[in-house]
């Protein structure tokens, strides 16, 4: 496979730069609050600048190819290499992880959750950033696995130390679910390695040779990967860790979880499971599609039943990731394009919604929907932002959410060769119904929280959007509108890479 190896240092620097910040933070005295925040901020700004450099130097005419490729020995005895690169699918997610981390750091300057200790908090966040960015650029299964796992501990501590009432339970549940998935995933990685002749863990190599594995074996290997990625997405019925983790996590944790971590799973399907095991993908696709639409409906009903705003947003994630997985399960370039767009859009929108939830909690000291109300009169700007994001989340045309959802549904009309058309059309109808429910729960949420008159007595903490919040939020809001109005900004990059990835399915 052709690759572009120019500027091959860029990705390594972008990914490992946070380590420099971590080391600096380690030697910064705990008491020096300002220095700690400065180091964290500067590190994430520097990381984003490297990201911008990557973006500028990315050859958009060849977005289907791996670029900035670097490849050196890492663990020669097990034939694993340090092999990294980005294409049109990785690039948006890689950059998203950097930008979201920066915005979360900015937000944290003013909002360190209890029990404090910004030093540890920022160290964990930077390690998290490294793991996320690394996962999106890894082109070697073992390297991918290491980065994929690297995010576990920081998130575990972020939820467990800085989280809500049930934080210990939620963090352990998050950890055990994800680890269970990734343990089986590792076995599957080893199986595909040996079944392709024990030559290499490089993803391009496996894409070329994975198709040669007998179909019944492929199905089993896919099962292992499926569990690993499906837990992370999370797909119904592996989703139960998500509402707990989201609800208990501090705002920053929820934002990162929603914006980036969930995408590690869907990205794994697009990058690894489907291209390396094409025959198994055809076998599994209807089941994945089925679970996806179950997730859409389940998430929607779950949302309607919630009384807590943050938990509602968490359940809406289950539904949205259902759309993404439905798009992926069609195995068409149209569907996968929609899915990758959906990943980015969901990252922006749901990340934003969790930011808002955090700020609402800070002002009203509750997220009980019944105790909220009248935000538009009391904090009009926050109320309007919530409105915009709810509209984006329910898939209003002109905002980013639409381009993830609508094409995903449409793609189910015409799935790839070898998939049962009538099954997928049924999925399409159910998914379309799901959007109606999405509109229902989001509008209902908005109505209950933003309309009406303010409730409760103690309002002296209630104030409108602060400067820190504006700085952290504006880029996300701009992106939601920009990608909604000009979706080709994103589709143009994604599409060539998706075409390349789905070669085995005839486009």
């Amino acid at each position, binding site marked *: 496979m052709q690759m572009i190896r120019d500027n091959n240092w860029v990705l390594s620097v972008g990914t490992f730069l946070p380590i420099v910040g971590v080391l600096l933070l380690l030697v910064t005295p705990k008491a020096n609050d300002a220095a700690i925040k400065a180091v964290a901020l500067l590190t994430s700004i520097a990381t984003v600048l490297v990201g911008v450099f990557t973006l500028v130097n990315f050859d958009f005419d060849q977005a289907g190819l791996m670029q900035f490729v670097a490849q050196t020995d890492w*663990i020669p005895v097990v034939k694993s290499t340090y092999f990294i690169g980005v294409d049109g699918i990785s690039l948006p997610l890689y950059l998203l992880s950097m930008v979201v981390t920066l915005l979360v750091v900015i937000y944290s300057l003013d909002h360190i959750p209890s029990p404090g200790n910004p030093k540890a908090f920022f160290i964990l966040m930077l390690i998290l950033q490294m793991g996320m960015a690394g996962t999106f650029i890894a082109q070697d299964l073992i390297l991918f696995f290491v980065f994929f796992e690297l995010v*576990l501990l920081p998130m575990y*501590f972020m939820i467990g130390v800085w989280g809500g009432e049930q*934080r210990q339970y939620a963090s352990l549940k998050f950890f055990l679910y994800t680890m269970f998935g990734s343990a089986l995933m*590792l076995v599957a990685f080893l199986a595909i390695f*040996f079944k392709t002749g024990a030559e290499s863990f490089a993803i391009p190599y496996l894409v070329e040779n994975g198709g040669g594995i007998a179909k019944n074996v492929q199905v089993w290997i896919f099962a292992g990967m499926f569990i690993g990625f499906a837990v992370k997405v999370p797909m119904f019925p592996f989703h139960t860790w998500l509402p707990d983790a989201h609800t208990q996590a501090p705002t920053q944790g929820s934002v990162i979880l929603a914006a980036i971590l969930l995408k590690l799973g869907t990205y794994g399907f697009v990058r690894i499971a489907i291209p390396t095991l094409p025959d198994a993908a055809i076998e599994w696709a209807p089941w994945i599609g089925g679970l996806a639409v179950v997730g859409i409906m389940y998430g929607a009903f779950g949302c309607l039943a919630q009384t807590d705003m943050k938990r509602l947003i968490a359940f809406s994630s289950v539904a949205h990731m259902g759309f993404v997985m439905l798009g992926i399960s069609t195995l068409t370039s149209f569907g996968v394009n929609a899915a990758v767009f959906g990943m980015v859009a969901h990252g922006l929108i749901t990340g934003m919604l969790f930011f808002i939830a955090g700020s609402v909690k800070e002002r009203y000291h509750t997220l009980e929907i019944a105790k909220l109300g009248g935000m538009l009169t009391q904090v009009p700007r926050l109320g309007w932002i919530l409105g915009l994001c709810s509209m984006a989340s329910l898939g209003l045309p002109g905002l980013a959410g639409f381009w993830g959802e609508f094409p995903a549904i449409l793609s189910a009309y015409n799935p790839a060769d070898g998939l049962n058309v009538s099954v997928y059309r049924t999925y399409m109808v159910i998914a379309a119904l799901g959007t109606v429910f999405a509109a229902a729960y989001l509008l209902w949420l908005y109505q209950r929280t933003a309309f009406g008159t303010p409730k409760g007595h103690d309002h002296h903490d209630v104030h409108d959007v602060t400067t820190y919040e504006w700085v952290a939020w504006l880029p996300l809001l701009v992106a939601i509108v920009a990608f909604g109005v000009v979706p080709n900004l994103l589709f143009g990059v994604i599409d060539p890479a998706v075409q390349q990835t789905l070669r085995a399915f005839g486009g």
Partner: protein
Amino acid sequence: MSLVASSAAAWTAPVIDYHALAPEIVLAVGLSVVLLVDLFTAERNKWLLSVLTGFTLLGATLPVLTLAIHDDSVRSLFDGRYVVDEFSLVMKGLFLLAGYVIVLLSSAHVEEGDYWRGEYWFLLLTSLLGMVMMSSSRDLVSVFVALEFLSIPAYMLAAWRKRDLRSNEAGVKYFLLGVFASAVMLYGMSLLYGVANSTLLVDIGESINLDGDFAAVQALAVVFVVVGFAFKVSAVPFHTWAPDTYEGAPTPVTAFLSVASKAAGFIALVVVLLTAFPAGRDVWQPFVWVLSALTMTIGNVFALRQTNLVRMIAYSSVSQGGFVLMPLAVAGGAAGDAALRAVVVYLVVYAATNLGMFGVILAVSRKTRSGDIASLGGLFSYAPALGVLLTIFLASLAGIPPLGGWIGKFAAFQALLTDATPWAYVLAVIGAVNSVIAFGYYGNVMREVWMRPVPHGDNTPIVTPSSLQIALGITAVATLVLGILPGVVLHFGDIANLVGAFGG
């Protein structure tokens, strides 16, 4: 009379390669010096002994290095009964360095404890000498002698706190079950000798084929020997001594038992299985398969229930043993090389991590004087460095990248799946599930450290003696480097260097 005389005349002294034996010689001289110095030093100067012990171990590491650098060829002594090859050098290096870290872990503990210091260092060195010998033994007699050499001082060390009932219980249990295991093994060995007419492992390997008139005897012999080693490495269901012994023994001794002593048992098992019974695979592989699955699972399930830290570690170390056994369940043919490599890698990583964890426990217990997991509550808030270190070690034991433990588990899985039989995949899935269960209790300790309040609000900082700090530094760096650049350690286990070794 004449017969004796004539055989005596025929006997010629073997040519001894003193360079190859240098590590053993340094250790033997060192332990004698320690014993002598102990007799003639005043109580207040006994700290000299720990220094001497440390220098002896480092001194013995030097010839290991020169041997490793000198040439790659295998040095075979005493007609192949004692072999110095890369495998044995790696293991010797591991034992000596682990021993050095244990000296660092022990010194403060021993100085402050009003114990019999001279004996402690002497016994420690003796046991380490046994382990170093074990790495090179390729003969039933030398394997057995080395095994006893390393075990007997360990029994005494376990019971070393004379006035403490628990310590006595620890020593007695360990001794009784250890002796029982030795007896079983010795019986198996005698059968092997009867069948093969030789004690040399390579010769036995040629005779044991599970074929012909003595097939049943051969099978029995193989099983007995494996059972004997299963006791030594505390594989389920032969593990029952481990929790009591680990809990009762002084903590540095527990560190020693769970790391060095266990590793010695494993390498003996590997050498015997792969050299003496390659053709007996049909007997021992299913047996090891079951042992491995049971050991991982039972160890984990019991570890989940523990409230005492050291008991939890005991069960966790039982469970980790199951992972070491895992690749042996398919070892043979191409997978044999991978299995051997996996065992070496696992033992190296496990040694670094586990010793580090014991270091943190020793440091913390200086303040808390308690063995409860709950006594670690809020450690991160008042001793962040120790809290982070403990987290690193626990995460490494749980096998979470990028900390050392993952490469051990990875190598084990990889070796297991080299022979892609369905049984191998079943065991791999059992292993995968177990590595998740294991996080249940490792995570529980992390939760205490990070998320729970400090018991009694006692926020006094912990004073860590410098020897402990050095030990923690060494083990933490090792754990991180092994995890991030595993090529370093995997290179040691590069199998091309080991195959020749087994040929003798």
